[in-house]
């Protein structure tokens, strides 16, 4: 019998789902105001882009987009901190996971929690002119403001890929059982 998801894991899972979708929708709203990516410090319309994204240009969605993006970011960062702290304290990542999941699954989950989430947070912070003043080394280490924006974009894409894989696995392994396990904490 597999161990049950603790209440803390279940609550943080769904709070994160909400925060993640807020970030995804608002991130797209911000991106389409300037769907061009650059490498280095600067870049603007009229200069060559490193990558022109085939997206429709829309400059009227970034106001609410930014407000929702930062609300979602606060939800995910605070919620993620609770999840990671309790996970480390309860040895969730080394103990419980070991018995339940395969090698590839464990790698994917740890990659998301310990590589992608931190990367997307740091690159997001690096784009802030105020954080750039408080901690200029972060921007320097990433190779400049526009490089941070480009890495942020690719980290977001990898997270979406993970989400697709994650939902596919849930469906393949029995959707209603898995949903019951993550909502009510029943044995999966």
């Amino acid at each position, binding site marked *: 019998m597999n161990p049950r998801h603790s*209440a803390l894991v279940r609550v943080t899972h769904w709070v994160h789902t909400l925060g993640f979708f807020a970030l995804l929708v608002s991130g797209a709203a*911000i*991106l389409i*105001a*300037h769907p*061009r990516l650059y490498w280095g*410090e*600067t*870049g*603007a*319309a*009229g*200069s060559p882009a490193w990558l022109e994204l085939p997206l429709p240009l829309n*400059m009227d969605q*970034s*106001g*609410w987009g*930014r*407000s*929702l993006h*930062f*609300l*979602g*970011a*606060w939800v995910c960062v605070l919620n993620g901190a609770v999840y990671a702290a309790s996970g480390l304290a309860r040895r969730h990542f080394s103990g419980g996971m070991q018995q339940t999941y395969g090698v590839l699954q464990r790698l994917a989950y740890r990659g998301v929690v310990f590589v992608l989430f931190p990367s997307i947070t740091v690159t997001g912070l690096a*784009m*802030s*002119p*105020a*954080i*750039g*003043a*408080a901690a*200029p080394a972060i*921007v320097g280490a990433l190779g400049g*403001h*526009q490089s941070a*924006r480009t890495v942020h974009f690719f980290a977001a894409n990898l997270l979406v890929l993970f989400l697709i894989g994650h939902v596919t696995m849930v469906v393949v392994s029995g959707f209603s059982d898995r949903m019951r396990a993550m909502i009510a904490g029943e044995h999966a």
Partner: protein
Amino acid sequence: MKLTRRGMVAGALTAAASGSAVSLARRYGLVPPDHGGLFGVGETLTYAAQRVLLHRQPLAREFRRDQISTNFPAINTVLPQDIDYLRQMAGGFDEWKLDVGGLVERPSEFSLEELRRFPSRTQITEHVCEQGWSAIAEWTGVPLSLVLTAAGIRPEAKYVMFYSVDGWWDSLDMADAWHPQTLLAYGMNGEDLPVPHGAPVRLRVERQLGYKNLKYLSGFTVIDSVQGWGKGQGAEGAEHGYSWYAGI
């Protein structure tokens, strides 16, 4: 989940803590004017966190002269359709004045020449647009702090509200108003500030996004409350959905 005694105690403690957090935040000026609604929660967390993080007033990053962008877009208004402005422009802005009023001992008007007589500061910084692009330029101007001091700012000042020829208005808190890189800029890349970039004088507030750097300034007023300006959210941009605090 059952309601346990532990859960109830934790809940009461959380409520008490957030209650005192709100009153502490108000006392230390950590609540932005656009704190209302669901988005206001995020605006407040970001503003409070950044004000704490920046309490030592670090400088925005500055760059080398060879990093100045050859391509620096000018957006929104690029030539105000205002008859007085066009007349001043034709006269080389000799008759342009900056109105300074509100909570100051000496409400006054400064001509471009008078602003140029203050000690100046030149800085090469990155302008980050909320749309996503960014560009580097060199800015020359008088630090706002010198003009505030010359006008005799009063201790109850909480915000500096700027207004422009093209009808825009926006405010800074005192942390950004006193910051050494906050300039009334009249020069760009070693020349007079070009008209598309806000001639004769624009605001430079380097630790915030581009839209806070108002172009075509016509004056500012020192205030202790943003009430009475539009819907009281501190900026015209906030009424169009753009965060009042844009250190993001």
